[in-house]
């Protein structure tokens, strides 16, 4: 499975009968840090995901299994909406407050020396 972001919808009037009533989404694959990676693709949807949501999708024959017993001719399906991602990263000091603190601190010290 791969992470992605829903960036659009596809509408098709004339399509394979097994695709009737199914939503097709435009997905931008993303990294766990939510940076875009790779090219956009079209997935069928079995979760009800909406624009802007982070989702995960499957690729291959498994993509048609959520729609059993119907077998739509598809190769990618959105199978889950991501609530949160917990990444193992080094704890980072927030950049903005640290930058704001430093000048004030130095200023105070300099005034003290005078």
């Amino acid at each position, binding site marked *: 499975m*791969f992470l992605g972001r829903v960036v659009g919808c596809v509408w098709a009037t004339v399509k394979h009968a097994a695709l009737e009533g199914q939503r097709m989404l435009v997905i931008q694959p993303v*990294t766990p840090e939510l940076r875009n990676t790779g090219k956009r693709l079209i997935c069928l949807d079995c979760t009800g995901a909406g624009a802007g949501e982070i989702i995960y999708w499957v690729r*291959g024959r498994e*993509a048609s299994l*959520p729609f059993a017993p119907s077998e739509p001719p598809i190769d990618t399906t959105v199978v*889950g909406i991501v609530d949160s991602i*917990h990444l*193992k990263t080094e704890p980072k000091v927030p950049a903005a407050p640290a930058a704001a603190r430093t000048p004030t601190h130095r200023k105070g010290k300099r005034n003290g020396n005078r």
Partner: protein
Amino acid sequence: MLIARVVGELVATQKHASHEGRKLLLVQPLNLDGSNRGDAVVALDAVDAGVGDRVLLATEGFSAMTAVGRPNSPIDMAVIGFIDHIDLMPGVS
């Protein structure tokens, strides 16, 4: 199958019913020298792996479904084992 490292976990409430009751892991596939091989992927957990573990990753439908015990469900990646040690011939990396 690929060598991979578990780099995180993922929470999803709205998902296909066959994914319920299994951990969703973020795993980073690795080359033999330990460097990253492409982007991290989402895999279901069949062996109770945790963040930081070096694991075996099945990247094909049938093996992944069988490993997590959910046949005929939309699963294409699963963590199916822990790697303790890798022995390589000299000169291979």
